[in-house]
């Protein structure tokens, strides 16, 4: 097999160069402008929506975050509160109406920035109806209290969490929402195992041992992170991070481990272990590389120009995700198309072209298109430059 680890590592090393400060400043300025635009153009006022979830309300009074709805005769019809929770691609913001007996009477989805395909699954399965007539402020177990939606588990959990938080607000304005229970399962265990395996890989000196361990990591990631969970690191994760859409850590530990684990290691150690040993789509490309005996193709003058492509694609996707506050829609990578077998015509076309090219060129998506790799590379360059300046070394020696 010509797809050796050394060739990949050497190719990866060729990606590094000096940090282009001018382009970085332009990119940061674009992202700040997009963030500001999104900040000023989102979130609609909630009070006028209260009669939607408590029909018959003639008057609405706000007390803190809780709205009290009154009928024509002045009697209390019920209470309403809004809350949001983050799913896979972005938050779902909803309004919950509760009758005086404490039962949920109505729910309105005010805004949602979830990945469109996942949200469509919730809507099509009429998932939200399962919460009606349930007691407000009580934790809900998906699959037991309310039917879950396979293929959109994180989105369904976000709805359940938002309904729960809104109910908690209504139950007691002063009561802090009870944090959800800590959840550690297959995703978290797999990710930590892959991370530790990647660290161990650096200590294996024997080439055959390195090759075997690396393939074990890649295939495990492809099977579990890719096909079973469909939760690889995407540009949507970075867009969510920058937009401030951080899910509750107790039940989204995977999100934090993935994002902060990989970014944290890049910043601490200056190495990108995700792309080379954990990325499930990288594993798929390498499997296709075996079929066609693909090799790294990075002709120096051309690659020097083309390496700007993933960088600016990353900036474009992040800027759109921030400006419209739809992080999930920023994810243009073909990861979801492959691992969920669900997408439109153009994502499928992109996937087919990339996989076909993978038989000739080693990891073409990684080197020429991937926004995640571009972001992680940028962080490595930034770290290198900052460290170089901190140590008062000339830039040339930091290369």
């Amino acid at each position: 097999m010509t797809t050796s680890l050394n060739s990949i590592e050497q190719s990866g090393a060729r990606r590094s160069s000096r940090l282009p400060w001018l382009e970085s400043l332009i990119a940061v300025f674009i992202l700040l402008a997009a963030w500001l635009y999104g900040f000023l153009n989102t979130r609609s006022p909630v009070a006028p929506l209260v009669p939607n979830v408590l029909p018959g309300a003639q008057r609405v009074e706000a007390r803190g975050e809780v709205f009290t709805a009154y009928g024509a005769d002045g009697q209390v019809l019920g209470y309403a509160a809004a809350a949001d929770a983050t799913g896979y691609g972005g938050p779902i913001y909803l309004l919950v109406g509760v009758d005086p007996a404490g039962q949920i009477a109505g729910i309105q989805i005010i805004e949602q920035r979830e990945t469109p395909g996942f949200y469509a699954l919730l809507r099509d399965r009429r998932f939200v109806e399962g919460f009606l007539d349930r007691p407000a402020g009580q934790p809900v177990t998906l699959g037991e209290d309310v039917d879950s939606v396979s293929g959109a588990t994180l989105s369904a959990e976000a709805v359940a969490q938002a309904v729960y938080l809104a109910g908690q607000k209504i139950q007691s304005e002063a009561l802090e929402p009870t944090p959800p229970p800590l959840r550690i399962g297959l995703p978290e265990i797999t990710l930590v195992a892959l991370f530790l395996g990647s660290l161990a890989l650096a200590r294996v000196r024997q080439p055959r041992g390195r090759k075997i361990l690396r393939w074990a990591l890649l295939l495990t990631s492809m099977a579990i992170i890719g096909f079973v969970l469909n939760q690889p690191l995407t540009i949507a994760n970075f867009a969510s991070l920058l937009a401030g859409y951080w899910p509750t850590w107790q039940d989204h530990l995977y999100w934090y481990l993935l994002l902060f684990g990989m970014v944290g290691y890049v910043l601490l150690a200056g190495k990108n272990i995700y792309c080379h040993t954990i990325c499930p789509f990288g594993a798929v490309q390498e499997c296709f590389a075996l079929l066609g005996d693909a090799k790294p193709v990075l002709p120096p003058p051309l690659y020097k120009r083309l390496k700007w492509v993933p960088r600016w694609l990353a900036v474009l996707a992040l800027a759109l995700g921030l400006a419209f506050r739809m992080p999930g829609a920023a994810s243009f990578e073909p990861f979801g198309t492959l691992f969920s077998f669900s997408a439109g015509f153009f994502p499928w076309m992109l996937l087919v072209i990339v996989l076909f090219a993978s038989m000739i060129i080693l990891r073409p998506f990684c080197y020429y298109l991937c926004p995640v790799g571009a972001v992680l590379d940028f962080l490595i360059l930034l770290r290198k430059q900052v460290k170089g300046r901190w140590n008062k070394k000339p830039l040339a020696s930091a290369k």
Partner: protein
Amino acid sequence: MNVRRSIQIFVFVCVFLVLIILAEAFQDTDSGALSGEIYLRPYIVESRGG
């Protein structure tokens, strides 16, 4: 066709597809953002906006 030309075509086509994918994803931002679906007892669903 040499290797460089092949890579250029590959990148050009893929970037074109990526731009279309992003345009499709963000073209309907208002209806995607302001969902407006209302669920009421006894399971009446109204739809406003998207």
